[in-house]
């Protein structure tokens, strides 16, 4: 009982110090950003060329857009999802298990909660950075129809936080690097294929549409497509709301699970 009083599980230790952890990750990132950025940028471009240009000629207009215009925002979003997820799974577990940076940082006044938040913030940073680079390319390719696209990075901040949180939950439970395969194959890939990136969800059975609603990717794709094409009905605010709700629900689990793993 004494122990419980001293260590309330929910006594969060959060301050602006998490920004120092973010700063650390950014400093390390300056060492390898070129290779990382090129790698993450190439993949969506390949998809765009193969599907948008190659497959696209056989597909009539979707929702008043060419197929290329239809899939471009979705590929932008999915590439940010991959980038953030890689960062907060493999990247974070390397910091935790291989480099033991987490253990070093928590001997200082920085708390474990702040370390985890710093990593999540870094995941969101990558989401914004990679998404913005691809947005620039889409602009050059003439695939951006509306100045509302300037708001895309804000959406990517929100979605980046959510994907980082999800990845971090997985990382806090991961005994080794192999188990990330499950996350990527069983969680992210189905989301990638069935979140309205390649085809509108209306054609799918109702159950699939409902399931898509439960994924952060679906809402992010809808929002970014709306912003880039300029077709943004007010009902799209529900997508923003959905992402905010995801963020709030997922705020505590990574912190608590990482505590369970490190504080013994």
């Amino acid at each position, binding site marked *: 009982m004494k*122990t419980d009083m*001293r260590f309330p599980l929910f006594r969060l230790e959060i301050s602006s110090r998490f920004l120092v952890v973010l700063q650390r990750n950014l400093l*390390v990132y300056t060492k390898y950003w070129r290779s990382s950025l090129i790698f993450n940028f190439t993949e969506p471009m390949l998809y765009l060329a193969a599907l948008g240009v190659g497959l696209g000629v056989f597909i009539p207009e979707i929702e008043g857009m060419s197929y290329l215009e239809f899939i471009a925002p979705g590929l932008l979003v999915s590439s940010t999802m991959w980038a953030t997820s890689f960062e907060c799974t493999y990247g974070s577990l390397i910091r935790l298990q291989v*480099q033991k940076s987490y253990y*070093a*940082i928590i001997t*200082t006044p920085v708390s474990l909660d702040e370390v985890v938040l710093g990593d999540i913030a870094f995941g969101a940073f990558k989401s914004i950075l990679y998404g913005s680079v691809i947005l620039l390319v889409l602009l050059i390719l003439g695939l951006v129809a509306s100045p509302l696209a300037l708001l895309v990075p804000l959406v990517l901040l929100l979605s980046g936080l959510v994907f980082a949180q999800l990845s971090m939950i997985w990382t806090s439970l991961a005994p080794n690097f192999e188990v990330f395969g499950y996350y990527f194959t069983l969680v992210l890939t189905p989301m990638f294929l069935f979140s309205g990136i390649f085809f509108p969800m209306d054609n799918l059975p109702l159950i699939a549409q409902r399931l898509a609603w439960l994924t952060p990717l679906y809402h992010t794709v809808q929002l970014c497509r709306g912003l880039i094409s300029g077709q943004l009905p007010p009902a799209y605010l529900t997508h923003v709301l959905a992402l905010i709700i995801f963020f709030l629900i997922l705020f505590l689990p990574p912190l608590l699970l990482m505590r369970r793993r490190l*504080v013994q």
Partner: protein
Amino acid sequence: MQTDEAEGLPALDFPLCTKGVNMQDITISRKIISARNLVKRYNGKAVVDGINFQVYRGECFGILGPNGAGKTTTVKMIYGLSPISDGELTVVGLDAGRHSREIRKHLGVVSQDNNLDPELTVWENMIMFARYYGLRPAQIKGHLMQLLALMDLTDSAKARVDTLSGGMKRRLTIARSLINNPELLILDEPTTGLDPKARHLVWQKLRDIKQQQIAILLTTHYLEEATKLCDRLVIMDQGRILEEGEPLALVEKHVGSQVLELGLKTDPSAFQEMIMTRFPQLLKGSWLLGDTIHLYTGNGSCLLQKLQEIPFPYHYHLVRAATLEDVFLKLTGKEYVPSNED
């Protein structure tokens, strides 16, 4: 940070009782760690089982023990990575359970693993750590440079950490742990995995740090390390403190000044018993490892002479100075003591 302390105070002694000065106050102000009946349980099993110890400013205090003795767990409780199950733990005057973050502001921790940022340079590692402590690197540049100089790393400031040798990494970890001018430096097996030369250099550096009158808590299973660095130490095994004292006093108390090693091919335990019953006044105990009897004695050559008077089939003998290692083995290993049933 230690300006309130007069220089040249004896590292170990309790404060002198001076008229008009409340002794309790001084004791508290100099006491950096105080553990009382400290317990840590994992799944109901106590890995630290009611230990008591104090560490004072200016001393190097050692926790010795075999792997699994509870050393690292004790250290983790001090810097808040491991919640306390029972008992009291006060660090720099604060309750370790409640004020972990505040305590860490006053600590430097060199943990067992290398946990530097390998992609960053030596200098970048230093400035990042300064930031974790809420310090502005630009304002304490001179201090950071001094620390690198102290650890012989000035020339490597721009080198990436993954290009450094093991010894240099260790010294950088130590330099990094001093950034906040800690009141307590925790060294958790600081030289594990280093080659002998690198280890001796690290010891030299740690002795330099000791001059600065900060408290050092050292855990190790290198007995030589403990002898060289510690003013006072405890020997831990299975979560309990077996013995506490100054290294040389412990050696004298448990083992005497010398050890006579005898190698026997046949029936060493019978001979061990025979010697123990025959020369009790010359012996402080003995320990059998394989076919070698270790005889703890005040006078090895005298004992050897007496043994040579009786026909004795040993094929190897060595008289050497007793070390902390003998104390350690005696306390944590199986040992033959005539008066005990074992």
